[in-house]
């Protein structure tokens, strides 16, 4: 155990508190805003004590937004479902395609393999808007504009390179001898992939999947351009709260709280696997 004086511990506590406050403040503030009406939010000076209301959440869940100018229909729950569906499906497709590809790139050095891997990575270099203009035209011709399939396809630009490159590193970290040993024991390469490579790269695959999910969830620009209202995820759907009669801060906050909950829950759940993955690498030998 490290030897620390009382003063040191107090100072460390203060420092940690400051860091936590700094990073948690926006989230806490949004959480508080989500329980307030626009009037209490916009009060000057802002006050910490208020009478909480669930009006924002009810509005979101029922889909009826009451503003000064009348009642508006909003598709927030629909957007939330779109987000879940698009992110989950995109990550699933990316894992299905990316993990075997990563294994191939890690284990088999074929002609042009580095070039192909790099090309896939380079999708992440191009500004999204640059890709989007021609893509929109193509998609309209192909009938893919405003379809889930089209969106999931475009989301592969986000998910696939990420998963491919992260998982490839994990596969490369598995000593080849372990796989050879399984082959020599009499198992096919596919059995080796399934029983040895996949479980050993498991934490890496989980980490890559989680990251890809967060990126897909947070994506805004692809869905903004390529999807209409009924296919839009929350990131785009939140624009609806900027109404003609003002910005609905309360509802935006409630929407943010609802939309970060799934990713936050997933991250917290997957955290122990991530940690396990890191420590597994540390004692390799």
């Amino acid at each position, binding site marked *: 155990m490290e030897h620390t004086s009382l003063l040191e511990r107090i100072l460390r506590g203060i420092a940690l508190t400051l860091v936590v406050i700094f990073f948690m403040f926006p989230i806490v503030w949004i959480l508080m805003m989500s329980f307030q009406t626009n009037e209490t939010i916009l009060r000057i000076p802002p006050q910490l004590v208020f009478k909480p209301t669930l009006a924002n959440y009810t509005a979101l869940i029922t889909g009826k937004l009451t503003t000064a100018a009348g009642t508006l229909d909003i598709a927030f729950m629909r957007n939330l479902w779109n987000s879940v569906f698009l992110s989950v499906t995109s990550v699933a497709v990316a894992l299905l395609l990316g993990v075997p590809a990563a294994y191939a790139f890690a284990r088999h050095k074929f002609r042009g393999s580095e070039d192909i891997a790099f090309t896939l990575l380079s999708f992440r270099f191009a500004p999204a808007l640059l890709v989007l203009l021609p893509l929109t035209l193509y998609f309209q011709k192909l009938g893919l504009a405003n379809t889930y399939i089209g969106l999931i396809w475009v989301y592969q630009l986000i998910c696939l390179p990420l998963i491919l490159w992260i998982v490839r590193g994990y596969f490369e970290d598995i*000593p080849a*001898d*372990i796989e*050879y*040993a*399984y*082959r*020599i*024991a*009499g*198992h*096919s*390469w596919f*059995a080796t992939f399934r029983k*040895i490579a996949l*479980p*050993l790269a498991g934490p890496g695959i989980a980490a890559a999947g989680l990251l890809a999910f967060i990126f897909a969830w947070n994506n805004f620009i692809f869905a903004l351009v390529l999807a209409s209202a009924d296919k839009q995820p929350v990131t785009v759907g939140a624009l609806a709260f900027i109404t003609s009669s003002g910005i609905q801060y309360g509802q935006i906050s409630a929407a943010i709280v609802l939309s970060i909950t799934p990713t936050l829950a997933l991250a917290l759940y997957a955290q122990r696997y991530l940690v396990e993955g890191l420590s*597994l690498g540390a*004692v390799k030998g």
Partner: protein
Amino acid sequence: MASLELRNVVKRYKSQTVLDNLSLSVADGETLVLFGPSGAGKTVLLRLVAGVIDPDEGKIFIGGEDMTDLDAEFRGVGMAFQNFALFPHMTAFDNIATPLQAKRSSQSAMKAGVESVAKLLKIGHVLSHKPRALSNGQKQRTALARALVGSPPVLLLDDPLRNVDAKLRFEMRLELPRLLADRGATVVYVTQDYKEAMALGDRIAVMSQGVIKQLGTPEQIYREPANIEIARLFGDPTINLLDVKPSRDAKGIYVGLSNVQVHLTGAYDATVGRDCVIGLRPEALRFVDEGTSAAIPVTVEAETPLNEKIVTLVRTVRGREILVSRPAGTAGQTEGRAHIAVDGKSALLFDRANGDRIGSKNVVNLRSGEAA
């Protein structure tokens, strides 16, 4: 059971030739030790036989069948890796059971098979542990058990004792020959330890830079090494190597060591006047009384008792250092001036220019696959 044959095998990595037109055959049930420094191509050779890497040229036969293009899982060999290569996410039991699983053995047969081999290797009590919880010795035995469990006709052991401590290595060196003989398998055993090679091999193939430099019984390799390099690798303490130029007199060929003529027995006629190196095993030298014929005067520099033997470093009048080894408990000079005698029969003579032993009969030219 099965014999094993490699025919004109070539393996290159980029521009580097790792195995250079190598041919080798191992008889059914024989234990062949591949011995050589790291980078000699021993492990590559083993992996070619196992089928995890493919040769660029040449053929590999197991049990008379051409296995060159067959994937590893169809070759029916067992292999233990130097780094154990245990599956970290499986228990020792599951690790050992993998070859039986591949054969689709029943649960009970699998259990019986694993437990019998585990008992043989004394790891029965750790079968439920994951590799992380095993000691190095247990890991090594688990890896060995995995190689043995399916009773493969060909066993490939890649320096399995490299990463275990000295005590265990010694124990295993005693146990392994019986274990391997009981199995009746054809064994290829890779090692860098000459004692292991001598203890385990029916024959030893000494490899260097992708070719087999000498192939013979442990006895042959020790008594008749093909060249200086091999003579130096086998034996502890190392062989004494002294530059000499043989001459001839009425009694035959002799070399001058510190102005003393030491006569050699053997067909060394062609060496007269040539630059040679004489190799004298430390145990072939002995301390003698002054006045004995052909006694070489030396000064004792240092003495190292090594339990079963005593090694003495002596210096000749010309300043050359020589090691003399004698069994512990025997008399010998411990300090000051002394005399040593050379056994002319056991002396080895090498050509200084190319390092080859002169008069060696059993140097096999394996480069083209023909015994010369």
